[in-house]
Every structure is written in C-alpha cells, then in structure tokens.
C-alpha cells in the first residue's frame, strides 16, 4: 500500500522523461537527495506550474509506487527570483547544484547539507560584488564536505597532528602533511602554501555572514578551488563506482 508523504527541498536537477514528464532530483530538508517522477510536468497546462523549476524551494506531496516516488502535488515556498534574474548568480547556483547532484547519494544524506545550501543561496542573493562569488562557492563546498565527514585537515598535519613548517596537501589522506609524514613523490600530494591552507581553514570554519569581514588573497580562491575540486573527485570516484556496483547487483 502506498503512503502519502510530504517534504520540502531545492530542485537541483531536472531531466525530461518521455514526451511530457520529468524526473527531478531534490535536495530535501529531511531525506537528503531524493528523486521524483513528475508526470505531465512538461505540459503547458501542468498542475505543477513553475514549482518544479531548478533552484526553487518547493513543498512536495508524493507517494511511493513500485520503487518510484510519484509526485502528486508541488507548491512553491520560495522561487529565489533574485538569483534567477542575474546571470552571474545563477551560473554559480547552477554549478553548485551540479556539484551536489554528483556528490550526494540517492535517498541518503545529511539534513545539514540542505541548510548549508539554503544559507549559501540566500547569501548569493544578497551579495553585490561578483568577485566574491567564487570565495563563497569555495566556502560552501568546504562546509558541505565537512558535514559529510570529509572535511580536509587544514590547520595541522593530518597524520602526526603537528603544526607543519612546510606543507603538502594529500588528496588521499584528506589534509595537510608535514615534511616528515609525506611519502614523497606521491601522485596524490600537492605542495600547499601554509597561508593558503590557513585561508581555506577560515572558509571552512567561519559562517557565511562573517566571510565579508575577512580579506583573503585571490590565490586562496584560485588554488583552493582547484584543490578542493580535485579532492572531491578523488573521493567521489570510488563512491560512484560503489554506487554503480550496488545498482548492478
């Protein structure tokens, strides 16, 4: 017997299914990442209207039938119109939605990721300077990784816990390595300036609203973004292979 359920969340992906339907991926408030089948959603006279637009905060009423979550009702809680009326804001928001879509596992996820994304989108709506967007995006990614237990160690050596004088970032070990602990010549090690590591640590620890008060060099954003994307991909690959393996069996 199917049971009617209700949840709210951000639409982070929407793909067409058949001639008139859509499958939408939602970063939900209480169930992590979930996907719904929205029948007839592409029709002009669809009952879902604009509630299934990407990056909209929507309340969903659904029921489960033969493994599929079928959407019965959807109503907009916040359309985030400001975000959608500026190309630079929208591009960052859509890019982070793709990042979340790849990172999060279906029907599993930390409820805190929803709150971090909500804070991030609200911050993005209120920010004026385009040049700060990348910094907030990096801080968002670090905060999400931390909430999933993947926070990189950025203030001490990840192996011996000592404050390093020179440091390398290990994708494998998930943080800084000192001269003594690094294996040397490792494909997963990247030299990392301690100043940049300190900047990244601030982006990880400080709440979004306090980031406006700190001044960081552009290197923190440029080098940090490259490093964190590499770090995410490094940990994502085995996770995706695991998901593929589970889906096949």
């Amino acid at each position, binding site marked *: 017997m199917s049971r009617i359920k209700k949840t709210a969340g951000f639409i982070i*992906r929407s793909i067409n299914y058949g001639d008139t339907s859509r499958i939408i991926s939602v970063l939900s408030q209480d169930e992590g990442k979930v996907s719904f089948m929205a029948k007839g959603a592409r029709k*002009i006279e669809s009952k879902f*209207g604009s509630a299934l637009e*990407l990056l909209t905060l929507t309340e969903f009423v659904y029921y489960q039938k033969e493994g599929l979550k079928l959407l019965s009702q959807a109503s*907009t809680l916040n359309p985030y119109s400001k975000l959608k009326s500026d190309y630079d804001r929208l591009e960052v928001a*859509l890019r982070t939605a793709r990042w979340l879509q790849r990172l999060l596992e279906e029907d599993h996820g930390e409820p805190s990721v929803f709150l971090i994304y909500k804070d991030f989108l609200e911050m993005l709506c209120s920010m004026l300077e385009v040049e700060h967007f990348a910094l907030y995006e990096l801080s968002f990614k670090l905060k999400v990784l931390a909430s999933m237990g993947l926070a990189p160690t950025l203030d001490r050596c990840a192996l011996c816990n000592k404050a390093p004088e020179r440091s390398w970032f290990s994708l494998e070990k998930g943080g800084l390595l000192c001269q003594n602990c690094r294996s040397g010549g490792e494909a997963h090690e990247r030299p990392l300036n301690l100043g940049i590591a300190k900047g990244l640590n601030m982006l990880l620890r400080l709440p979004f609203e306090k980031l406006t008060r700190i001044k960081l060099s552009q290197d923190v954003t440029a080098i940090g973004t490259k490093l964190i994307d590499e770090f995410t991909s490094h940990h994502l690959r085995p996770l995706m292979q695991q998901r593929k393996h589970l889906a096949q069996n």
Partner: protein
Amino acid sequence: MSQYPEPLEKLIKELKKLPSIGQRTAERLAFYLLNQPEENAMLLSQAVLDLKTKIRLCRECFNFSEEELCTICKDGHRDRSMICVISHPPELWKIERCNGYHGLYHVLGGLISPVNDVHPEDLHIDGLMRRIEGGAVQEVILALDPKVEGEATSMYLARRIKTYGISTTRIAQGVPIGRDLEFADELTLNRALQGRVSI
C-alpha cells in the same frame, strides 16, 4: 536463446532504442513491418538513411537543411532585420506554423545549463554574434524556454548583444489561452502582470 528469428529480434532491439518505445510497442511495430509489402519496408529504410545522409545544419542559422543554406535563409522575402533565437529546430517549425513572424532564425542547439555541463561555448552563440556583426540585424528576439536554463541563456545573450547596440527582446510570458486564471501559479501570473498590454 532468443524468442524470435534473429532478423526480427534485431529489429525489435533497434526499435526499442527510440524514445517512448518499450518491448511491447517494438514487437508490435516489428510485426506490422513484417506483414507489409517489401516495397514499404524499402521506402522506410531509405527514408531513415536519407535522414542521416541528406540532412545537415544550415551554415547561417543551424536549422536542419538539405543544402548549405536552409529554405528560410535562402528566402529573399524574409525580413533580414530580425533574428528569432530558439534552442532547437522543432521550435522553429512551431513558430513558422503560427504565421506571425517573417524574419530569420538562429538555432542555438541547446540552452546554457551548468547543471548538465552545457556552457556557452557548447552552443552556436559565436555564429549568432557573427550574424549580428554583419550589420543588417536590428532586433534579436529571444524565444527560449521559460525555465531556469532558458533564463540563463537569455541573460547571457542579452549581455553580449547589448555591446552591439541593437534591440534585444524576449517573447511574452504569462497565462496560456484557454486556461483558468485560478489555476495559474504565482510566478506565471506575476510575469503576465508585468507584461500586460493596453487594449
């Protein structure tokens, strides 16, 4: 062990690759074709083959065409001061059937969608800019899907076209004809109010 003779099985397998065709529909179509005269089967296979060998993209607008320029770009009676930008060719034929537009078109080949890793450089945007640089265009009409990706593409194009100092417009958005206002969602109704016209 396969259920049907190999050629039939092969056709069912190929038909199943088409959108909205499942096993049962594929079987039904395959049996229908099997019962048709050989001539009909030949005509169908030739039509499918022609689609791949004779159709290409128009050099100017990226619409489907049999020649280097499509029938619309070649038509001397079209208004060359207007370009209507659409994402895919089927939308072009939909607008043509309205019989309310007589300018030229430009097919982007998709919409900017960072969610699906589609970026401006993946679309026919440079081709559009080259046409605008040509100097004859006075207005660019953006007729893109009223969804987030369509909005992103419209904003990006408007920003780039602005540098040429020509008019950029967007098709109106609002309540579809024949639908009750009561069932329109807030965002659509808001757009309809913003785009109201005097009567």
